[in-house]
C-alpha cells in the first residue's frame, strides 16, 4: 500500500492542483477556433478558479467594496474546512506552495546536518506574515487592493504569466526555428512535428511582450531561491494567505499528538517539515504554522507522531506580539493615506492611465484590483501591461492599455471575463458597444480620446497622403474624419491631401489609430484617458452625447 501512504496522497494532490493551475493559466488566452463561428467569444474554462478559492482575495474584496464580487463566495470551500482542520490548503493544494515544496526538497549546501535540522525549527520571524497580513487587510479596509502584491496567486500569475511563460515561448520558438531551418531534412521534420505538438500545448500565436517582465521574473526566481537557505521561506514568513489560514485554524479539531514516551529525540521529524512548526518532542506544536504535509508522521521511526481529531495536548497559537501586530496595523493604516497624498488620480491624472474596458472608476478600481495580471495574460492584442508609475505607487502592476503595443479589439471583452474581483466589471460585447448593435441608443464604453500631433502627421506636416487612422477607426460613423486640403510639397507644387480630424464625441479611445499610425516610434495620433466613460470628472466635452 505504498501508493496510498498519506504523504503519497498529498503528493498526488499537489501534482493535480499544480497541473490544473498551469493548464488554466496556459488557457488564459483566446486561441480561436476554426470550426466555430460563435459571435460572442468567451473562454470555455474557469481560468480564474484559483482566485475564487482564495479567502484572502475574498476578504480583501469584501472589506474594500463592502460586498463580494460574484464567484468569490467559492472561497468558502477552503475557508470552512480550514476552520476545522487547519492549513491543509498550503500543504495539499496551493500551487505556489508546491513549487516551494519542490525546490525546498532539493539538496543545498546551506542545509546540511545540524544546520538543516535547525533551519526547520520554529522561528519567531515566522510571525512576520501575520503582521504583513494585518497591514494588507487594513489597507483593504481603507480602500486599497495592494493585498495583490503579496497574495500567492497574484504573485504566481503575474510572475509566470507575464514573465516565465513569455520567456519560455521565445526560447521554444527560437529552438524550433533553429530545427526548421536546418539543412538536414530529418531535423526539419522533427522541428515541424515538435512545432505542431508544442503549438497545441504551449506556444503563443504571437510572441507576448510585457513591460517589467524581467523584474517580475527575477523577483520570482529570487523568492524561489530562498528555499535553498530556508525551506518555504515565503510560506513561513511572507504569505498573507497562509497567515489568514493559520489564524483561523486556531480552533481546528485536528491536531498533532506527540507520544513523548516513545520519542528518542532523533529529530528526523524536522528534516522534511514544511511549516517549521516544531513536531519534535519536548516542545509545544505550533498549530498555525503546520501545512499538514504529514512528512513528520511518515519520518518518525518510533511512530510517536499522529494526527488525531480532538487532540488533548496543548498547542501553541500564533503567539503574536501585540506591539508588532499594532505596527502592522498602523503600517497598513498609514500607507494608504501616504500613497494617496501624492497628486495621483485625484489631482493630476497621468494622461496615459488608460484602463481596460469595463473598469470601474479609479478609486473603486484601485480598491478591487489585486494586480494579478489575468487581464494582461488574456488580452489577444497584448495591449494590457503592468503599470509602473502611471497609477502612482499604489497602482504598481495594475493593468494599463498601451495602444502602441496593442489596441483594444472591438468585440473583445475577455479581460472583463477573467477579472476575479470586478475591478474590470464583467461586460458583454453589446455593452461595450463597439461592434455589436452599433448605432443603437446605448452609449458605448470609452477608454479615452485620441489626439493628433500635427507636427508628425503625414498629411499635416509632410504633404503626404495617409489617413490609415481613419481606415482603422472602428466606430460607425467614424470618429476620425478628414477634409481635402491643398498643401505644397518641398518644391512648392500644390498638392491635394486628406487631412484627418477627430470628433471627440464619437471617439471610444480604443487606440486602433495609434497602433496603425505609420509613424513608427512616437505616433502622430495617440490616446489619452480624458473622456473615459468610467469617470465623471475626467472629461473634456460639456455634453458628450451619443456618437
Amino acid at each position, binding site marked *: 500500500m505504498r501508493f496510498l501512504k498519506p504523504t503519497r496522497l498529498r503528493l498526488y494532490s499537489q501534482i493535480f492542483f499544480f497541473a490544473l493551475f498551469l493548464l488554466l493559466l496556459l488557457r488564459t488566452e483566446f486561441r480561436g477556433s476554426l470550426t466555430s463561428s460563435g459571435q460572442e467569444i468567451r473562454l470555455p474554462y474557469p481560468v480564474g478558479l484559483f482566485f475564487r478559492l482564495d479567502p484572502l482575495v475574498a476578504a480583501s474584496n469584501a472589506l474594500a467594496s463592502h460586498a463580494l464580487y460574484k464567484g468569490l463566495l467559492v472561497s468558502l470551500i477552503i475557508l470552512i474546512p480550514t476552520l476545522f482542520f487547519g492549513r491543509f490548503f498550503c500543504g495539499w493544494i496551493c500551487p505556489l506552495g508546491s513549487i516551494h515544496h519542490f525546490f525546498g526538497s532539493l539538496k543545498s549546501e546551506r542545509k546540511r546536518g545540524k544546520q538543516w535540522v535547525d533551519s526547520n525549527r520554529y522561528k519567531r520571524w515566522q510571525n512576520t506574515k501575520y503582521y504583513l497580513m494585518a497591514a494588507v487587510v487594513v489597507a483593504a479596509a481603507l480602500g486599497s487592493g495592494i493585498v495583490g502584491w503579496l497574495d500567492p496567486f497574484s504573485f504566481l500569475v503575474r510572475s509566470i504569466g507575464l514573465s516565465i511563460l513569455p520567456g519560455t515561448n521565445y526560447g521554444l520558438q527560437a529552438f524550433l526555428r533553429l530545427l526548421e531551418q536546418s539543412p538536414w531534412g530529418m531535423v526539419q521534420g522533427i522541428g515541424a512535428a515538435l512545432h505542431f505538438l508544442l503549438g497545441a500545448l504551449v506556444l503563443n500565436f504571437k510572441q507576448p511582450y510585457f513591460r517589467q517582465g524581467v523584474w517580475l521574473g527575477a523577483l520570482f526566481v529570487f523568492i524561489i531561491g530562498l528555499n535553498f537557505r530556508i525551506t518555504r521561506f515565503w510560506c513561513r514568513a511572507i504569505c498573507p494567505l497562509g497567515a489568514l489560514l493559520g489564524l483561523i485554524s486556531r480552533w481546528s479539531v485536528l491536531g498533532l499528538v506527540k507520544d513523548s514516551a516513545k520519542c528518542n529525540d532523533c529529530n528526523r521529524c524536522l528534516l522534511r517539515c514544511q511549516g517549521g512548526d516544531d513536531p519534535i518532542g519536548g516542545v509545544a506544536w505550533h498549530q498555525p504554522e503546520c501545512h499538514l504535509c504529514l512528512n513528520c508522521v511518515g519520518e518518525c521511526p518510533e511512530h510517536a507522531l499522529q494526527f488525531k481529531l480532538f487532540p488533548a495536548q496543548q498547542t501553541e497559537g500564533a503567539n503574536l506580539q501585540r506591539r508588532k501586530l499594532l505596527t502592522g496595523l498602523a503600517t497598513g493604516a498609514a500607507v494608504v493615506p501616504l500613497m494617496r497624498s501624492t497628486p495621483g488620480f485625484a489631482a493630476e491624472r497621468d494622461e496615459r492611465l488608460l484602463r481596460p474596458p469595463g473598469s470601474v472608476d479609479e478609486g473603486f478600481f484601485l480598491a478591487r484590483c489585486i494586480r494579478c495580471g489575468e487581464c494582461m495574460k488574456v488580452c489577444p492584442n497584448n495591449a494590457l501591461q503592468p503599470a509602473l508609475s502611471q497609477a502612482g505607487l499604489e497602482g504598481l502592476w495594475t493593468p494599463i492599455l498601451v495602444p502602441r503595443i496593442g489596441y483594444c479589439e472591438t468585440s473583445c471583452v475577455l479581460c472583463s471575463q477573467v477579472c476575479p474581483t470586478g475591478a474590470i466589471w464583467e461586460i458583454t460585447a453589446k455593452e461595450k458597444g463597439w461592434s455589436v448593435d*452599433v448605432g443603437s441608443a446605448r452609449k458605448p464604453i470609452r477608454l479615452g480620446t485620441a489626439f493628433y500631433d500635427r507636427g508628425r502627421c503625414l498629411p499635416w506636416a509632410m504633404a503626404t497622403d495617409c489617413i490609415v487612422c481613419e481606415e482603422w477607426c472602428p*466606430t460607425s460613423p*467614424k470618429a476620425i474624419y478628414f477634409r481635402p486640403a491643398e498643401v505644397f510639397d518641398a518644391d512648392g507644387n500644390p498638392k491635394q491631401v486628406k487631412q484627418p480630424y477627430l470628433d471627440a464625441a464619437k471617439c471610444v479611445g480604443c487606440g486602433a489609430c495609434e497602433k496603425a499610425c505609420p509613424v513608427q516610434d512616437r505616433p502622430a495620433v495617440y490616446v489619452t484617458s480624458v473622456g473615459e466613460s468610467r469617470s465623471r470628472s475626467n472629461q473634456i466635452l460639456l455634453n458628450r452625447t451619443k456618437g
Partner: protein
Amino acid sequence: MTIPEKMESGTATLSRREALIRLLRAAGLGAGAAGLGVWLSQRSSHPQEAIASSVKRGHSIAPNPALPEMAVVEGDDPAQLARQAVEELGGMNRFVSRGDVVLVKPNIGWDRTPEQAANTNPSVVAEMVRQCLQSGAKRVLVTDVSCNEARRCFQRSGIAAAAQAAGAEVILPDPSRFKEVDLNGEVLTTWQVFDAFLNVDKIINLPIAKHHALTGTTLGMKNWYGILGGSRNQLHQKIHESLVDLADFMRPTLTVVDCYRVLLRNGPTGGNLEDVLLKKTLVVSTDPVAVDAYVAKSIWNLDASSLPYLGMAARRGLGTMEFEKLRIRIKTI
C-alpha cells in the same frame, strides 16, 4: 575532482612527456583560435536579411474567345450565386486542373460579423472551395493577413468554419511564416509576404466590395494588401502605385467580387448595419482590372478616371479598364 591533501613541495618537476603534452595543447588551442578568428573576420559583412527568391508568379489561364470574360449574377442565395457565376465563365474546370494547389483569398480583415459586411460572405467562400475540390484540386487553402486580431477575424467572420466545413485548409497568418520577398515593383521592392501565398498553382481573389475613404472604394486589387506583413500601414502614402505593384505580383486566376452585401459608408471597417446595402450580386472575371472598374462604376458610380490605379494597371498590361468592351454575361436567378 579530488583535491590532494597537501600540495607537493616545490622540488617536483614535470616530466618531459607531460611538459610536451601541455605545450601541444596550448599550441593547438592557440592555432584553433587563430584559425577561427581569421575565418570569422573574413566573413564580416554588413548584416542583411535573407530574401526569398523562388517565387512562382502569374496564376492566370489562357483566354478563351468563345467564353465570356466577365459575369454579373444576381439572386437570393449566395452559394448559388457563386456556383452560377463561375458556370457562366465556363465552369471551374476551366480554371482549376486536377492536382492543383488552389489558394482562395477572401477578405478576412476585420473583427466583424457577416451581416456587417466588412469581410467576404462565408457562404461564397465555402462554395468556391467546394467547386475547386470538385474540379480535382489537390488542396484548397483559405487565408488572409487580417488587420484586426487574426483569430477573432477568422472566427467571427464565419469564414474559417464555413471554409473548413467545405474541405479547405484554413491557415492562420502565423507571424513566423512571413518571408522577405522581392516584389519587383515600382514602389514596392522587398516586403514581408505570408508564405502561404507563395508557390501555389492557382489563386482566386475573393474580395468584398466596400467603401474606403482614401480610394473611394476597396475591391479586388486592394485585397492584395492581405498578403503582406511588415509596415503595410505605409502603403497609403503611394496607394495607387502600390496597388498596381501588388496586382502585377499576384496575377490571379479569377477575381470574384462579393457584392452580396455592400458596405456603402464608414468602410472598410463598418459595423453599423445601416451602412450595408443588400445588393445580392456577384461579379466574376478573369480580368482583375475590368472587374474593379465595373463594380466601382455600377455601385459607386465612380469613373475609371477617379481611380488612378485602374489606368496605371491597364498601362502595365494587367487588364483593361474599359469593361464595356469585354464579353459580359449578366444574369438574374
